[in-house]
C-alpha cells in the first residue's frame, strides 16, 4: 500500500486557482520531490498534506486512511521548515524532546527516545550543546531529528537547503542524501532547485501553474522530458530549444531551423507522420553537442563563440550557429575565447523533438 496518496487536489485562493488537479502517491521509504518555479503550487500541496491548509476539493490518504478532517497534530507527519525553526534557547536534547514533552511522555521513555533519534541523525555527541551554537548542518539534523522523534509516517521538507550558501548547500545535500538512506522514511521534498531534486529524489514531480507536468525518476525526466517546460526547467544550463520544420528532400529527412539544417534521416521514424513544413521544436542538451577546433566530422556545423563560462573541469560555451544562440557544455578548451570559430556536432540520437502547438514531446 502506498504511504501517501494525494487525489485530485484543487485549491482556490479567492479567484486564483493555485492547484488545478493534482494526484500522486508516495511509496514506503520513497522520497518524492515537488519541483517547480515559485508560484507553481508546490508549497501549497505540502501545507495541505500537513493539514495547515484545507483543499477546495480532493483527498489526502495516509496509510490508506483519509486524513482530510484530521488536525495537523493528529496526522503523524513530521514537517521540517525552510529555516529549521530550532529553539535557540533550548539545548539540542530539549529541541528533540520538545514534541515528546508536549505529548507528556514519561521521563525515562523520553530520554531513551531522544538518544535513539539522536544516534539516527548523528547528533549524540552534541546533545548538551545550546542550539544557538550549532552550525547549519547540525541544525538541519536536529530539525529532522525533532520530527523523527515523534515517529512520523511521513516527513515533509520545505526547501530545507534554500537559505544556505552554495558551498554549504552542496555539502548538506550530500549529507541529507545519506541521512535519507539511513532513516528510510517516506518523504515529500519541496524545492525550486532542479539539481537538488535530481540528486535527492527517488521520483520527481515537475510542477507548473498548479499542475504536475511530468512525474518520474531523475533519468526519465532528464532524458525523456515530456513537455517543453520540463525540458527547459531540468538541466543546467537548460536544453537548447529551437523552432524548426520538417523538410523532405528526396529520401532525406531534414530539420530546418533558420540557417541550420540537421539531417535526421536515420531517425526518420520519429518525425514520420509529420507533414512537410509542420512546426516543431528541436531540443538538444548542451552536453550533447560536441565541439572541435577543426572540422573532423563531415556533419559538423560552424559555430562562433560569443561567451565562455568556465565552471571547473567544464566550460559552458555560448555559440552562434546559423543565426541562433546555442549553448554547449564540454571540457574546458584553454585556447578557445570569445570570437573563436569552432565546429559543433549534434549528437543526433540525443535530439529531442516537441510539437510547437501542444508543447508535448513527439515520440
Amino acid at each position, binding site marked *: 500500500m502506498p504511504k501517501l496518496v494525494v487525489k485530485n487536489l484543487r485549491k482556490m485562493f479567492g479567484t486564483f486557482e493555485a492547484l488545478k488537479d493534482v494526484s500522486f502517491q508516495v511509496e514506503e521509504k520513497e522520497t518524492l520531490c515537488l519541483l517547480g*518555479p*515559485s508560484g507553481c503550487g508546490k508549497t501549497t500541496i505540502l501545507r495541505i498534506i500537513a493539514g495547515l491548509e484545507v483543499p477546495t476539493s480532493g483527498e489526502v490518504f495516509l496509510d490508506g486512511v483519509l486524513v482530510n478532517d484530521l488536525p495537523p497534530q493528529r496526522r503523524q507527519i513530521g514537517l521540517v521548515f525552510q529555516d529549521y525553526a530550532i529553539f535557540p534557547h533550548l539545548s539540542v536534547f530539549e529541541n528533540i524532546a520538545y514534541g515528546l514533552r508536549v505529548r507528556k511522555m514519561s521521563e525515562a521513555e523520553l530520554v531513551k527516545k531522544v538518544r535513539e533519534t539522536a544516534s539516527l541523525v548523528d547528533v549524540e555527541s552534541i546533545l548538551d550543546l545550546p542550539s544557538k551554537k550549532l552550525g547549519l548542518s547540525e541544525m538541519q539534523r536536529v530539525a529532522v531529528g525533532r520530527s523523527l522523534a515523534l515517529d512520523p509516517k511521513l516527513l515533509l521538507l520545505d526547501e530545507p537547503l534554500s537559505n544556505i*550558501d*552554495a*558551498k*554549504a548547500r*552542496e*555539502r548538506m*545535500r*550530500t549529507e541529507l*542524501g*545519506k541521512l535519507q*538512506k539511513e532513516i528510510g522514511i517516506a518523504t515529500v521534498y519541496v524545492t*525550486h*532547485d*532542479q*539539481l537538488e531534486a*535530481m*540528486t*535527492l529524489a527517488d521520483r520527481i514531480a515537475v510542477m507548473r501553474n498548479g499542475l504536475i507536468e511530468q512525474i518520474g525518476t*531523475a*533519468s526519465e525526466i*532528464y532524458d525523456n522530458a515530456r513537455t517543453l517546460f520540463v525540458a527547459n*526547467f*531540468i*538541466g*543546467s*544550463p*537548460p536544453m537548447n530549444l529551437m523552432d524548426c520544420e520538417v523538410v523532405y528532400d528526396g529520401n532525406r529527412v531534414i530539420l530546418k531551423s533558420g540557417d541550420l539544417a540537421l539531417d535526421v534521416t536515420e531517425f526518420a521514424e520519429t518525425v514520420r507522420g509529420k507533414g512537410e513544413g509542420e512546426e516543431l521544436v528541436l531540443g538538444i*542538451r*548542451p*552536453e550533447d553537442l560536441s565541439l572541435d577546433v577543426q572540422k573532423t566530422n563531415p556533419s559538423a556545423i560552424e559555430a562562433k563563440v560569443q*561567451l565562455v*563560462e*568556465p*565552471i*571547473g*573541469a567544464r566550460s*559552458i560555451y*555560448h555559440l552562434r550557429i546559423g543565426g541562433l544562440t546555442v549553448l554547449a*557544455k564540454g571540457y*574546458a578548451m*584553454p585556447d578557445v575565447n570569445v570570437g573563436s570559430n569552432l565546429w559543433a556536432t549534434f549528437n543526433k540520437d540525443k535530439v529531442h523533438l516537441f510539437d510547437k502547438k501542444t508543447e508535448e514531446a513527439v515520440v
Partner: protein
Amino acid sequence: MVGLRLVKVSKRAGKRQILKNVSLEIPDKELFVIAGPPGAGRTTLLKIIAGLIAPDEGEVYIGDQMVNTVPPGDRDVGMVFETPPVYPNRTGFQNIAFPLEIRKINDSEIKEQVEEVAEFLQITHLLDRKPATYSGGELQRVALARALVRKPRILLLDEPLKNLDAKIRERTRVELKRLQREFGITMVFSTHDQLEATAVGDRIAVMNEGVIEQIGGPEVVYSSPRTLFVARFIGSPTMNVTECALKQMGDRWILDASGFNVDVTARAHEIESQAMGQELLLGVRPEDIVLLSSPENTGCFEAQVELTQNFGDERVVTIRVGEVSLNCLTGKDRVFAYDEKVYVKFKQEKARVFNRETGIAVARTAG
C-alpha cells in the same frame, strides 16, 4: 589603465578583524569577482570601495586618485545590493531616473538616458509600473538600471543574484556578463557561489576570513589553487582531501593515504624539499578519479559505493575506501548500485598536495 586599487586595507569591528591587509588592483573594464563564504568580508570590502565604510588602515584609489576622504556621492561608484532598495511609490521610470534628478539634469535628457538603459536591460515594460508588481529578477534589473544610468566608472554588485530562483539566476548571470562587456564598465561582483564566480569573472579573488587567499583567472584558481581553502572552495563537487604520508617503496615514491595511495615519483623530490617532515594532505578532484568495473594491474584499489547523485549530464558517486569517503564524477551512462564493489584509479598527475599545518599547496605544478 588601473580602474581600482586597494593598498593594505584593514578593518576591525570590535575585536573582530573583518579585513586583514587586503591589496588588489583591477584594470579598467575588468569583471572582477570577490568570492568567499558568508563572513569572509566581501560586503565590507565593497562598502569600503563605495565609501560607505572607512577603512581602519590602507588606501583606496580610483584611477590615480586616492579617495579615502572622498564622500560616496563623489566617487563615481555605483552599488547594487543583494536586496535592492527601490522606492515602492515610484514607478520604474522614476526609480531609474532618481540619480539623474538629484544631479539636476534636464527632463528630456533624463528621459533619453532612462529609456536607453531600460531598453538594454529589456525592462521598458516596467517603466510605468511600481515595484510591488515586479518579480525578483525584474526588481534586480530595475536596481541595476538605476546604478547604470549615471554611467559610473565602477559598478559594485553585492550578491546580485542571491535572491533569485535557480533558473533565473543562471540567465541573469549571462546577462550581467554581456552587459559588462557591452557597456565596457569596471565591475566588482561579490558572490558566495563558486560556480557563479568562475562563470562570470575575468579574475577572481578568493576570500576567507578577511584575507585574500588567491587572485587569478577561473582556470588558475581551479587548476592551481594556492591554498587548501581555495582548492576546496572552488569546484563542485568539492575536491576530496585526505591525510597522507610520503613514503618510498623500492624506486617509487608514493603518497600513502591509508587504504589507497598515489604514485608521485615524478614529484617526490619537490614534495620532499618543500615539506620535509611536515604532515601532508592529498587533494584529488572528483573528475580525476576513474571508476572501473574490473581491476587493473597497477595503481588500482577496491571501494564500496556509498551514495550516487544524478546531475543529469553526469553522476557523482560517493565511494568508501576504509575510513575515507571520496566523491567521484562519472558519465551519465553507467549506473552504480548502493554497496556495489568498484575499482578505483587516480589520474596521478592531477593529485594535489598541501601542507597540513599551513594549508599551502606543495609542488603545485602537476607531473
